[in-house]
């Protein structure tokens, strides 16, 4: 914590409070209040991070506490960055992130735009639409495995009904080409309502007077949409993208329930892969290096994104 924060906190401390703690300066009182937070931050965030960085240079295995721990330098990092399987999981994660975000933004915004128009029963529709996001991802994953079941699943039956295909002739979660899409469909079904709610908040924050002024200027609906609606909702949309991006980067439960990362490693996202390395193979040092690489990647990408978001908000 920087010195200026403590100084500011000391200046903000009411004089009466200082009088009650006789003999203590404002600065000391400020430290007393801030110290628990600093301690918690160090204990819960900073210490584990430093410890993980340390472990990432060793061959430590948490299931063999008695075994000697060797310092192996950059070997873990070298192995990870040259491992084609890891790059495949990164690719699978990127594919999943891109498509879910694109679909959820497009559908979520469209739904918000429709719901925002006043019509009879739109409250009921809003409630129905947001139902999926109230369910547990593990439960959703579980029941979608039944929906995707080739023999008895409703999904295959519906696809078969519209396309004429034999419902038992394809398996959404058993096919290499379809499994990634099976997950994207479920995640989109579940989380589009979240994007819709954020967009709805953005749409409802636009004052009617702006549209009335545009009407007076004889601006077409299309022009109003591109020059008023989109720019004013954009910061909300970007926020939704940030939330969904963070959530989907660490996606675990839904995918584990649906495909377990398979078939092969087609849907093995980085979070699943990391968990297998850390808590199934017990390669703790290796998994620590893996976690550090992911942390740096996400931290870098998020920083760039937040800067862009701030710029949009300033406009």
């Amino acid at each position, binding site marked *: 914590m920087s010195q200026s924060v403590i100084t500011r906190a000391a200046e903000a401390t009411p004089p009466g409070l200082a009088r009650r703690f006789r003999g203590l300066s404002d600065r000391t009182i400020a430290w007393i209040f801030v110290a628990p937070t600093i301690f918690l931050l160090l204990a819960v965030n900073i210490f584990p991070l430093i410890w993980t960085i340390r472990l990432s240079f060793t*061959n430590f295995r*948490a*299931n*063999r*506490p*008695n075994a000697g721990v060797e310092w192996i330098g950059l070997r873990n990092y070298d192995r990870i960055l040259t491992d084609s*399987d890891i790059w495949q999981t990164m690719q699978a994660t990127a594919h999943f992130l891109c498509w879910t975000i694109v679909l959820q933004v497009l559908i979520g915004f469209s739904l918000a735009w429709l719901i925002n128009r006043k019509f009879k029963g739109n409250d009921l529709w809003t409630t129905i639409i947001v139902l999926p996001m109230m369910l547990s991802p593990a439960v959703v994953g579980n029941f979608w495995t039944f929906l*995707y*079941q*080739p*023999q008895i699943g409703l999904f295959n039956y519906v696809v078969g009904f519209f396309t004429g295909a034999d419902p*038992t*002739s*394809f*398996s959404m*979660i*058993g*096919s*290499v080409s379809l499994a990634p899409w099976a997950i994207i469909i479920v995640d989109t079904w579940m989380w589009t309502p979240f994007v819709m709610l954020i967009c709805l908040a953005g749409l409802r924050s636009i004052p009617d007077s702006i549209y009335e002024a545009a009407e007076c200027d004889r601006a077409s609906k299309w022009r109003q949409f591109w020059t008023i609606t989109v720019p004013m909702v954009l910061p909300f949309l970007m926020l939704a993208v940030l939330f969904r991006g963070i959530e989907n980067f660490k996606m675990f439960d839904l995918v*584990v329930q649906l*495909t*377990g*990362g*398979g*078939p*092969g*490693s*087609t849907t093995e996202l980085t979070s699943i892969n990391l968990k*297998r390395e850390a*808590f*199934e*193979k*017990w*390669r703790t040092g290796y998994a620590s290096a893996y976690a550090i690489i992911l942390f740096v990647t996400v931290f870098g990408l998020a920083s760039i994104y937040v800067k862009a978001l701030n710029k949009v908000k300033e406009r």
Partner: protein
Amino acid sequence: MNIRYTVPAAATALLAIAGTAQADDLTLCWAAWDPANALVELSKDFEAKSGNNMSFEFVPWPNFADRMLNELNSGGKLCDLMIGDSQWIGLGAEAGHYVKLNDFFEANGISMDDFIPATVTGYSEWPKGTPNYWALPAFGDVVGWTYRKDWFERPELQAEFKEKYGRELKAPDTLDELKDIAEFFQGRDIDGTTVYGAAIYTERGSEGITMGVTNALYNYGFSYGTPEEPYKLEGVVNSPEAAKGLEYYKALYDCCTPPGSSDWYMSEDIDAYKSGQVALQMNFAFIWPGVEADPNVGGGKSGYFPNPAGPDGHFAQLGGQGISVVSYSDSQDAALEYIKWFAQPEVQAKWWELGGYSALKAVVEDPGFATSQPYAQTFLDSMAIVKDFWAEPAYASLLLSMQDHVHKYVVAGEGTAQEALDGLVADWTEIFQDEGKM
């Protein structure tokens, strides 16, 4: 009361009080499955005789290893007795999780010669092949096959099969015959329902596909090493013969399994079989009592056969577990008392009656054993041909690497069988090098 009676009575009362004071609360940890329920029933006798109270911590198979190994790795005191998987024995011994039982066995007249040799090697010994015992064989298990005997006996199907393959429709002796039968039933209409050939292990997350594919690999020449060089992988694990075994398993998966069976293990196979979806089911022998008792497929409708032979051998994947005393337990004496009780022939006989698979020779070599259940002879035949996965302390890394490579080839169709096994050799070499064994 006369002093003659008072003193012994007081002594008896004191002993009883002392006995009560020594009574322990023991917790036995195992997987949540049918045999565990049988063990609860069996253990009531131990509670009555010893005065100790038994508690049980059962975890479903998909989470069993995660949960229990976390418990052991953290030095937890939850479990006094652990019926851990056979692959854990190396880790249990080397990481100090299990109590070494040699002295206890010797002091109590428990001889490992009284148990089926394969179960002693598989469940108790570490290092393998040495007389160092860390568990008592508790539950003998092996991968075998169940088939719809009632379908096989239908005259019209028998005639059609004979015309097509030139032999009787019966339990197969070879893997090739098994594939023919599975192909014969695939997509067939039986009583108005489309049925499929075989339910086999394809599960990716834990150990499923490895426990399945090894039944083909072993019989085509795959081995974990040579007797002279236990860590010789090159040319053994990835021999051309082993690659053919892997190709066989993929061909069986492609031709003859129900659609969507890309991540199936024990419970999915059971469900498919009991619901009449498949003619053949690969599964561990523990399910057989449940099959017999099932109204749809039990009561003579099902038959059992050991894993069929391949061109280069006749083996089956060992399952099952030994019972160990956890070194972190505060009640080790009572836990050892349980093992002593459990090793008794009459307890083992009752264990078999209740649905547990005894590994005691006195039980399985009893003249009446083979006919005691419809699957008893198949169990004996299967236990005679078992082979187990690595039991090294690094077994988890070895297992998950195999899961990855095999699943990618068999289910996802990535690369060739030879490439999958070459990749496996590369991974296993790295793991053993890290372990300092190569």
